[in-house]
């Protein structure tokens, strides 16, 4: 490979479209949509009144239930809203059967088959683990079952496991975007960083975050070095030795993708070891799992990632009424604030509804799956988190990546983002384009995104 070009760092960040701040250029992509018409047009043709059956698989037990619980709540809320209007096309009420993703990948695949063959589901949705979507996707294709994954965000799903999806879609962002977003946020906020420590759970998510962060930071801040690495097991709650090791390497920046209960236990310990006084901290998921899981003692100024996806305070205020109204309704229904899973599974059903309505408008009657898929492909949709686009080639949902810095806001009993320092990045600038070769097709990088960065990103100077 040729030596990469060099470019001024500020120009580089601006070429990536990075914007900082609650208002400003970022707002330009957020043009408030028209208010949805109160009375929807009646459906064309004869619509059956049989229920529309959905199967929602998510973690109902075990530690990952912190993510599964909001996923199901978002799904239920959307189904209730649609059913209150009479159901899909005003006729078909949404019925939901659930399955516990904690059963393990093999059992989940069996359960998917059972849901389709015995439960006669029309739509399969949910799924959180990146270990499960690559196993479930090919089976959904084999069963010709319309499938809208909410999460399970590994690049591997559409890079390798289902390279040419027909029935399978996925709505939330792509795993590689997490590490890249954190790198851009850190490079933008702390360009003087030279020594970096890593702390990641030792499984695919942590490995992916570390790899893509490093690929991006090497180009954004050339000359940085990794001075410490730690790979605790997922589910670790004792981080005292990791913290001491990180302190001993005296980094400028710690990058971590530890999440959930692990993250809560970690930051409580790191506080007492004075870690936050000695270095900057960038995360991929500090605010991602549940807004209310953290306490006011969480330090301010931490780059608090949300899976590059959604935090209920952004877009804030009246700038994006869809979000304001979604958060209010969600809080009223569940007495808590939504996370990215809630938003993802809520959007899934509403997007399905829109696709069915469009197909009906075109052809009349109840549309078959092919027609629904035709509408979902290339669909752009206004969601609480912003504008979501389903790329037709790989059925992946793309929306601008977002991250921010933790700050205590008197309005909430937990830390939220500093509204003046929210970072948004157009997703097309941090993901491989549609025709980019997938792993195994001309390169052997772990993801198409990794190869795309290595090939096309310049190195910044200054």
């Amino acid at each position, binding site marked *: 490979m040729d030596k990469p070009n060099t470019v001024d760092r500020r120009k580089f960040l601006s070429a990536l479209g990075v914007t900082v701040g609650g208002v400003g250029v970022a707002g330009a992509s957020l043009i408030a949509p028209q208010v949805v018409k109160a009375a929807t047009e009646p459906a064309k043709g004869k619509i059956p009144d049989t229920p529309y059956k959905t199967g929602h698989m998510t973690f109902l037990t075990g530690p990952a239930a912190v993510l599964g619980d909001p996923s199901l709540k978002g799904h239920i809320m959307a189904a209730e809203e649609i059913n209150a209007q009479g159901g899909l096309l005003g006729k078909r009420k949404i019925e939901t059967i659930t399955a516990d993703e904690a059963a393990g990948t093999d059992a989940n695949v069996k359960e998917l088959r059972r849901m389709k063959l015995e439960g006669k589901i029309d739509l399969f949705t949910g799924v959180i683990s990146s270990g499960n979507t690559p196993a479930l996707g090919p089976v959904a294709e084999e069963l010709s079952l319309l499938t809208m994954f909410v999460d399970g965000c590994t690049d591997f799903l559409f890079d390798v496991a289902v390279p040419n999806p027909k029935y399978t879609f996925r709505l939330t962002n792509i795993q590689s975007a997490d590490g890249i977003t954190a790198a851009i946020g850190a490079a933008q906020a702390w360009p003087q960083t030279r020594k970096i420590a890593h702390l990641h759970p030792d499984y695919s998510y942590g490995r992916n975050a570390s790899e893509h962060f490093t690929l991006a930071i090497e180009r954004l801040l050339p000359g940085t070095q990794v001075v410490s690495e730690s790979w605790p097991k997922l*589910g670790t709650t004792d981080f005292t*030795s990791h913290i001491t090791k990180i302190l001993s390497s005296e980094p400028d920046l710690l990058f971590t993708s530890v999440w*959930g209960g692990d993250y*809560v*236990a970690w930051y409580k310990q790191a506080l007492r*070891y004075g870690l936050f006084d000695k270095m900057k901290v960038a995360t991929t998921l500090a605010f991602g799992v549940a807004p209310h899981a953290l306490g006011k003692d969480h330090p301010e100024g931490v780059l608090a990632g949300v899976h590059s996806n959604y935090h209920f305070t952004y877009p804030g205020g009246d700038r994006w009424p869809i979000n304001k109204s979604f958060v209010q309704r969600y809080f009223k229904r569940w007495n808590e604030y939504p996370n990215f899973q809630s938003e993802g599974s809520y959007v899934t059903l509403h997007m399905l509804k829109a696709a069915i309505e469009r197909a009906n408008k075109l052809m009349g009657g109840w549309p078959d799956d092919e027609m629904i898929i035709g509408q979902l492909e290339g669909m752009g949709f206004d969601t609480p988190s912003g504008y979501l686009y389903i790329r037709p080639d790989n059925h992946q949902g793309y929306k601008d990546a977002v991250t921010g810095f933790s700050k205590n806001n008197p309005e909430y009993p937990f830390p939220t983002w500093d509204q003046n320092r929210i970072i948004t990045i157009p997703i097309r600038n941090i993901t491989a384009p549609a025709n980019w070769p997938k792993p195994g097709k001309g390169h052997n990088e772990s993801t198409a995104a990794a190869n795309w960065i290595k090939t096309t990103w310049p190195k910044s100077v200054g």
Partner: protein
Amino acid sequence: MSILVIQILNSLFYASVLFLIAAGLSLIFGVMRIVNMAHGTLYAVGAYVTAWLMGKAIALGVPLGWLFLLLPVGAGVVALAGFVIEPLLLRPFYRRAEEYQLLVTFGLLLILEDVIRFLWGGMPITADTLQDVVPIMHIGGLVYPGYNLVVIGIGALAAIGLWAGIYRTKFGVMLRATSQDRRMASALGINVGLVYMSAFAIGCFMAGLGGAIIVPSQAAVLGMGVDALILAFVVVVIGGLGSLQGALVGALIVSFVRTAGIQFFPEIELAVLYLIAAIVLLIKPTGLFGNA
């Protein structure tokens, strides 16, 4: 240098909690010949109960120093659970084959995990107020939470207390006699049922105490019990199941090796503990202090 001191303290801190869990597991196996799969989850119950009580006490305005009293209370609740679980769930299975006992304690694990989620939800529960009652220490240029020293102290006291209880009291003699020959002990007039119940409750108390003292430093989170169970198994495999010294030495080995792994070989942090367990199994299948 201060890093070395702190890493040694970190290891002792981790060993204290591991010892409490593994000693209970070993005690129950030593006396009752039951491998209690639910043991880690009982540790989690101790953590959750303590954190929950602490939240209530702080809301009521209890002076912070008094919160220390909630540590034995949290452990006591788990011991009480042990008094109920042993006669109701375990006793009917003593005469059955071992796989039944494994199944019934594994079932208990699943039930308790769901009970925890049902009672306390999925969010982590924290109790770090207690940690801040103990002043922060300065070691070299670094800080170290004083509370961790309290945990190390409690771990050491528990080890001494348990040793004294088993080797220096009449109850300890009955316990050891029952563990060596249940029928002979019974023939000599020892109330074996009561000994079993007490042994199980003491084991539960140790696990609960482990959970209670760790929760101010970390948090009560779903899945912490299963994680602890696996580590406790590594400890008893190394030290020998049923042996108190084994639990102590095993906990120390696991903690120090883990810390060394984290500091020097981060890539194999996961593997290194199992590696030691495998080596011990190859050389001495009964564990360092176990007897076949």
